Structure formats: C-alpha cells, structure tokens
C-alpha cells in the first residue's frame, strides 16, 4: 500500500533525528533526575559522595517499594490510597508481635513470625480492597479512600495510640546492616525493583495488567478473569506497603501509629512522575524508579542545601508541575493531533 510507505519513510527519518532521545522521551523523568543530580553536585560539597548516594537509596526505599506496587495497580486502572495506613499497621504489628511472651524463647527467630504477620496483614488488606473493588464494582479510589481512614482506625485500636519499641536490637541492626558493600535495605529495594520490572514486562500477568487497565471491557470480553486479576494486584501493593512499613520500622527499631501519613500522595506523585497514567494501561518500573529517585534526590539535596522548610514546600510543588510540563513538551504529538 502506497500510503503506508510514505508514513514509514517519514517515520524512519524521524527515528534518525530523534534516535538518541527516544529513551529520554519515553522516560523524561530520567532527564530530570540527571539535571537535579548535576545541580546538587555542583551546589553542595556533601551531595556527591558514595555515602550520600547510599543514604538516598535507603531513604527512597520506603516510598520506592510502595511505588512498585502502586505502579502495578495504577497500570491496572485502579489506585490504592490505603498504603500509608497499611505501612503503619504492618509496622505496628511486626514490632509488637516480636515482643509477645510466647516468642520470648525464640531468640532472634522471634522476628520471623512477626514479619510474617506484618506482611500477611498487608496482603490480606490488599485482598479485601481487591475483593470489594471486584464484587461491588465501586471505584478503587473510593474503596481505598475508605480503607485509608478505616485501616488507620484499626491501627489506633490495635496500638491504643501507643508507639511500640523493638526490644530486640537485632531488628534495628538489620535496618542498619550492610550486604556486599551496600545497605541491606537498598538491596531489598533494588532486587524487588528488578523482580517487578520482569513481572510487568515479561510475564502473562504483566501483559494482562496492561490490558485490563487499557480497556477493562475488552479484557473481560477477551476472557481475562479481571476480578481475580485485580485482586492479585491489590495483594501485591498491599504486600509492598507492608514490606515498606517493616523496613521503615527496622530503621526506627520502633513503630508509631502515625507512620506513613501522606505517603499515598507521595507514592502516587512518584509513580505519575515516572510516566504511569492515572487512567491505566501505561507505565513502567523504569519510570517509577526514576520518579522515586527524583523525589529522594530533591529532598536530600534541599536538606543539604539547607533550603528553609517553607521554601522546600513551594519548591517541591513547583517542581512537580514543572516535570509534568517537561513531559508534555517532550511527548508532544506531531501534526496528526487534533486541537481538542
């Protein structure tokens, strides 16, 4: 067909010009990460050092782990606002259970059932959210907005408003431990990032995740069991929220009922900055990783530059919008686009 050859010739020419920028166009957040990285390296003496990079990795690992799960549910066309509350629940459960008298004789092994219980709580709440979304057909935004309040309530019921302290120092030692030259928490984050990247890009479940988010009705028609599929994804995000709560509590050796407040908003921000669409069907882990790093570097860099607290808020807000704007400019479509 003649008209396609016209198209493809010009498309090829296009590729030649833009070839090198293609990757950046697909992940504009990484351009931004590089820019702020250079900026803070030049502006402060303390930013550019291995120790600081490790700090950034560990500090972002909390948001980062949750963002992995959030990316999946958002590609799926859903959202989970309850992650912050799940962070607090898992942390409180884990830290508390490890101190139960029944595990006293277990020594350091007492950490295991506690961690298992913490993770299970996240997975279960995820399953509950997913089940409600599936069976009632109520939008995930609403279901998880409710859960965000309700789970926080459960945390307060469980803890009686108290913070818990991990008597077993092995727990917080783990949070500070290193493995093969990197902080263990950084490893956990990196390994799960890789796993989820593979899950999304290589497996059937990953492909279905995109399909369901892209066009739920089409997915139903094509015979994907959309309900259970979504439920699994909610369980994944619940797992990661719980895991983040646990790794965070290993850093603190303690838990507080207010842990994870506002995390949902920051995680969603990082994910969207990474190119995941709120409407579903698009996004990837490479972008999310960039989004998480961007927020981590910004916060760390501004701390090191001693930006006054009030201005940090303004700067963060403005930068969020600026990145979105950058993304829009890079992804501008050609003359095929209508002026809608």
């Amino acid at each position, binding site marked *: 067909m003649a008209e396609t050859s016209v198209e493809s010739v010009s498309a090829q020419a296009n590729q030649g010009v833009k070839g090198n920028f293609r990757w950046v166009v697909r992940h504009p957040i990484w351009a931004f990460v590089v820019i702020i990285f250079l900026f803070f390296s030049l502006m402060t003496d303390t930013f550019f050092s291995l120790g600081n990079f490790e700090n950034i990795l560990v500090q972002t690992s909390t948001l980062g782990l949750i963002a992995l799960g959030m990316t999946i549910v958002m590609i799926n066309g859903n959202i989970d*606002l309850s992650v912050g509350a799940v962070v607090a629940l898992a942390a409180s459960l884990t830290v508390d259970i490890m101190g139960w008298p029944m595990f006293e004789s277990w020594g350091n092994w007492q950490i295991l059932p506690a961690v298992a219980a913490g993770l299970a709580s996240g997975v279960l709440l995820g399953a509950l959210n997913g089940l*409600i979304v*599936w*069976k*009632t*057909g*109520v*939008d995930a*935004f*609403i*279901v998880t*907005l*409710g*859960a*965000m*309040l*309700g*789970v*926080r*309530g*459960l945390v*307060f*019921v469980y803890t009686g408003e108290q913070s818990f302290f991990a008597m077993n120092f092995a727990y917080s030692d783990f949070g500070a431990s290193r493995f093969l030259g990197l902080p263990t928490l950084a490893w956990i984050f990196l390994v799960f990032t890789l796993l989820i990247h593979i899950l999304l890009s290589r497996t059937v479940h990953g492909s279905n995740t995109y399909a369901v988010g892209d066009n*739920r009705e089409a997915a*139903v028609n094509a015979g994907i*069991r*959309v*309900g259970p599929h979504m439920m699994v994804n909610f369980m994944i995000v619940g797992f990661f929220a719980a895991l983040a709560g646990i790794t965070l509590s290993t850093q603190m050796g303690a838990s507080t009922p207010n842990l994870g407040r506002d995390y949902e*908003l920051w995680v*969603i*921000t990082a994910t*969207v*900055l990474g190119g995941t669409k*709120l409407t579903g069907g698009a996004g990837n882990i490479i972008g999310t990783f960039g989004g998480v790093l961007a927020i981590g570097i910004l916060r760390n860099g501004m701390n090191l530059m001693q930006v006054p*607290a*009030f*201005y*940090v*808020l*303004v*700067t*963060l*807000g*403005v*930068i*969020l*919008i600026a990145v*979105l*704007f950058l993304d*829009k400019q890079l992804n501008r479509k050609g003359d095929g686009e209508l*002026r*809608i």
Partner: protein
Amino acid sequence: MAGFVERMRNGDIKSLIARNGIFVAFVAFMIAFGIGSDRFLTFDNLESVVRSSAMIGIMALGVTIVVISGNLDLSVGSMLSFGTVMVVNLHDKIGPGPAILVMMICVLLLGAVNGFLIGFVRLNSLIVTLGMLSAIQGLTLIYSGGKNVDVNPSTQDTTWFRVFGRGEVAGIDMPIIIFFALASFVGFIIAFTPYGRRVYAVGGNPTAAVFSGIRRNRVVFSTYIVSAFCVGIASIILGSRVMGSQNNVGQGYELLVLASVILGGTSLLGGSGSILKTVIGVLILGFIQNGLLLLGYPYFAQWIVTWIVIILAVWLDVAAKRGRLLSPIA
C-alpha cells in the same frame, strides 16, 4: 425536578429509590443513630452538626463541579489555610471589608493558576493540584512567618466580620444559611443552565464536547475559579468562627472534601453527579463523626465506621444504577 414529580405521580417509588440509593442510605443512617442516642435528633445537635459540616460542605460544592468536569482538586485544603490566615491577618490591618476583598482576589488567583495549568496547558489535574497543595502550604507559611494569626481580641466581639461565623438569622446559624444558599445557587447553575450542561459534557466526553463547539479550556478553567471561590467563602466563615487561624487548619481537608463528594455519588470519571447528592454526602460524613461521638465511641471508631459507610453507600448507589447487587465482572 419535573422528572421527579412525574415519577412520583406514576407511583414508581421503586425506581426512585433505585436512582437515589444515597438518600436511602442517609435516612437509614439517621434512624439508626436516632435510636442509638436520644440527643442525636435534637435541634441543637442537628444544628451543631450541620454548622460544623458547613465549611467542608461549601468546599465540596466547588470540588463537585471540578469532578463533574472530569478533574480533581486536591489543593482546596491548603487554599483554605491560605485564605483563612490571610483574611484574619489583614482584618486588623486594613479592616474586614478590604481584607475579604484582598483575600478573595488572592484565592481566585490561585484558582486561576490551577485552571490555567489544567485547562489551557492540559496538565494532569491530580499532580497539578497536589503540587499546588504543597506550594500553597509553603506560601501560607512564608506569608505568616509560620505564626498563628488572631483577630485582635478587643475587637472580636464588635467587628462585623463576626457575622459570617457567629451570626444568626431567625435562630439559624449563619454558616448553615450560607452553605444552603450557596448550595442552592450552585446547584441550580449546574443543573439547569447552559453552563452546567457544558460542564457535564466536558466531563462526560471532552472530545465530543469540543466537537459540539464547547470551549473546553474555558470550561475547565472556570471550574477551578468556582472551586477557589467556594474555598474563599469557607475561609471567611472559618476565620470569623475562630477569629484566628493556624497555618495548617485545612490540612487533610482535601480528602475529606473529596470523600463527601464521592459519597454523594459523583463519579471520579466525570460527567455525572449533583450538588444535592454532594450535600447529602457532606451531611452523612458529618453525622457519622457526630453520631459516634454522641454514642461515646473514641475518635478512631469514626474512621472505621466512615470506611464501612463510604463503601456501603457508594455500593448501594452503583448497585441501584446497574440494577444488580454484584458487579458483572468475571
């Protein structure tokens, strides 16, 4: 309205209930609490609940319109902090009238920034308003230097500014009157004017709206102006009620406001929803908090009950619309 009357005449009560699941939820709820506590259905209590819901309610009016047009506004909470701090701070300096004027202009400007970025530049509304949430919070702190602001105590009882939060007309508190007046006004505009029709169309299918000659950019822009206007009004009431303000008074309101809008059955996808239902949503949320307090439950019980009620109410609403309880998704 005409449809409503007609359906009543046809005796089609079942379909009426089906279409308005949220009202049923509301009534059931009021009865339950009325049985649980003898104070619940007293005039004083009802008035107190509606009064304390009025600010969330007024903000929810604007957010409803934003959501109907297919967007979100998460910046209302920090905008409320900003407006309240500003109007209270300026009250003693330039007098209540100018203070209100200057504050309204500033808040509308913030709304215009939202509207411009989302309507004309076409940036994602969730992230823009989230960014604005943070930026406005910072602006507020810079403006106030982080300090609480207060109306000079010696004028607190004499300034006419007190009317908005503390005044009464015919025994009814002013915030309630403003809330219902504004709700009727906005409700009529959105339901019965060409402007309202355009807002629904833009939310329902933006492409088709543009193909129908609607200037989508302007419509989206305008919804954020309306939202900012509502926040401005809420700021006046809050400032007047408290006669002072903190930099974080509005923190967390964005999600409460959104929750009540959604509770009323406005879909986040845009194109549907109504002010009347939002008002019901606001009242349900207000009564949950109050009802449990009266029954003597601790505050975190409110959160758990809110969880259950939000899901049940919205479920009832969508189930009624689709005519079956469970979703057909396999």
